[in-house]
């Protein structure tokens, strides 16, 4: 597979603070690649460097063969960007918004006509070019924003929490479009806090404190979690979390509904230790069993293991 994005030892320092610390990875052509990480993990800084908005302190990154520093001006025409805060103007019509983006990206003449028709078609807005953008339902706005972001046919597309707050039906049709683009060779980089979006990616990069701490397919990440996850029921689960979360051998304790999810180093040793800690807090275990981790459990476990 050809690398559409190639990152080597990329770092960014702000004074003494290391926002991104020697990050390296490659993204293949047509790959849908997800960036996850807590606030302040360095995701946004990395994406700003990849889109030429911020200079790296050291290391290098190439997007579609272009250097993000040396070829900054050429880079603009090879990438698309769409954020959750749409860049569309509500008081312009659909066609006016498309033309605005066409102008920004230098798409003119017959190509502009073709791209406009294509965007209207893919957004499900054929025959509605004259409608005010503000009046469109959210799902249509989102697809229109996507169309505008790729009006110049960029080989690499950046998405920032693209389907935040959208209903699942509209979200699925949005992702259909993303896979359509990916199937035609567009590389898509998604940054998100939500596992619902992360699940759509071919591979996921997990960042914490500026470092890349995991990089793999979602299924492999789930299977890779070696620490057992236990589900417990007690009468006062919130107090139970407090009682067990600083026990030796417990990596993470949290609530899931009224149940407790406890990530432990060793199941055999943890079971009696948990029972004892809860008894000391006046709580009794009603049931305890090992469960399969969800992607979010993997995420939190990796961040905790990395000292987050």
């Amino acid at each position, binding site marked *: 597979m050809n690398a559409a994005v190639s990152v080597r030892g990329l770092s960014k320092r702000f004074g003494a603070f290391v926002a991104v610390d020697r990050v390296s990875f490659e993204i293949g052509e047509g790959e849908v690649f997800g960036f996850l990480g*807590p*606030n302040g993990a360095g995701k946004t800084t990395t994406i700003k460097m990849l889109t030429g908005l911020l200079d790296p302190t050291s290391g290098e990154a190439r997007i579609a063969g272009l250097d993000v520093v040396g070829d900054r001006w050429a880079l603009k025409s090879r990438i698309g960007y769409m954020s959750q805060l749409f860049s569309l103007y509500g008081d312009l019509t659909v066609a006016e918004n498309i033309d605005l983006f066409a102008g920004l990206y230098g798409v003119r003449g017959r190509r502009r006509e073709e791209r406009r028709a294509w965007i209207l078609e893919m957004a499900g807005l054929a025959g509605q070019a004259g409608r005010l953008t503000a009046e469109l339902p959210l799902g249509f706005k989102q697809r229109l924003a996507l169309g505008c972001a790729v009006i110049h046919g960029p080989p690499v597309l950046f998405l920032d929490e693209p389907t935040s707050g*959208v209903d699942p039906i509209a979200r*699925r049709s949005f*992702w259909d479009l993303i896979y359509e683009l990916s199937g035609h060779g567009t590389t898509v980089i998604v940054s998100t806090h939500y596992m619902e979006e992360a699940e759509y990616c071919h591979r996921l990069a997990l960042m914490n404190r500026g470092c890349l701490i995991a990089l793999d*397919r979602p299924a492999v990440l789930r299977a890779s979690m070696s620490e057992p996850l236990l589900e417990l029921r007690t009468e*006062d689960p919130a*107090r139970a979390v407090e009682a067990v979360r600083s026990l030796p051998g417990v990596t993470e304790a949290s*609530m899931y509904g009224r149940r407790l999810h406890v990530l432990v180093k060793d199941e055999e040793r943890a079971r009696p230790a948990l029972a004892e800690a809860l008894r000391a807090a006046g709580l009794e275990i009603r049931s305890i069993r090992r469960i399969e981790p969800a992607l979010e459990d993997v995420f*939190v476990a990796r961040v905790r293991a990395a000292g987050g």
Partner: protein
Amino acid sequence: MDKPAISIRGLTRRFDDLVAVRDLSLDVASGELLGLVGPDGAGKTTTLRMLAGVLPPSEGDAIVLGQSIATRPEAMKSDIAYMSQRFGLYQDLTVRENIEFYADLYAVPRVDLPDRIERLYAFSRLGPFERRLAGDLSGGMKQKLGLCCALVHRPRLLLLDEPTFGVDPISRRDLWLIIHERIAGGTTAIVSTAYMEEAERCDRVAFLHEGRLVGLDEPRALQGSLGADVVELEVDRPRQALVELARSPLVRSATPFGDSLRLVLRREADWSAVRAALEAAGLRIARADAARPSLEDVFVELVRRMDEARP
């Protein structure tokens, strides 16, 4: 059963031509955690604002902690914590000063305050940051502080509008823990979210879509209600498989997730028949696992049924 903490009957709110909430009826038991789940524009915020007594209904009523929101919207305000998406923190006050400010506002006795603050710190992990200015906190920490401020007077009812919006998964867990600490103490809560993955954390889920209630039950019961098999599938040519599956009368939906596909079969359909059809089309199946229906699968199905029932 005890008298419900909230009893909603025919609650409707119009804004000019738009019906934001339409004929909503449901009860929330005392001590229950109800998730109000739906996309943007489903009516979540409008519902919460009416229950908090800050927006009068166009029709219908709700009895909240024994008081009618239509006729006595001010009566229960001191027993409620309503946290909107723009909760007012004082950016130039510290974490502790913000909590103390809200404690004074709600006349929390000064002698109780140190104990309550310690409790809030234990669950929010904000203790080490108590001298930091609110303006200097990260988004997740601000959200946790907002919740602590809203809870310091120990209200009987929490109405929280998307408290986890934009918050990373680690801080999100802390937020749920803070909420559950109050629930364990007997507090009732309605929490809204646009994220299906969060709905599973609630005792019961009310699915809203375009102002209507389309489903109301415990998460597991909702998942069971789908009554169809869900299969996770890896094939050598997923795009071609999608084309085949879209044609199949046995498959209700097929969604790509990265390299794999997620199929919801029709009620009467059997996976082996679908498998045979894919193989007959020349596709090679690398992996096929039965999966639990997600709440997202259920939501999509309920909305489809509602749309079909409409003229």
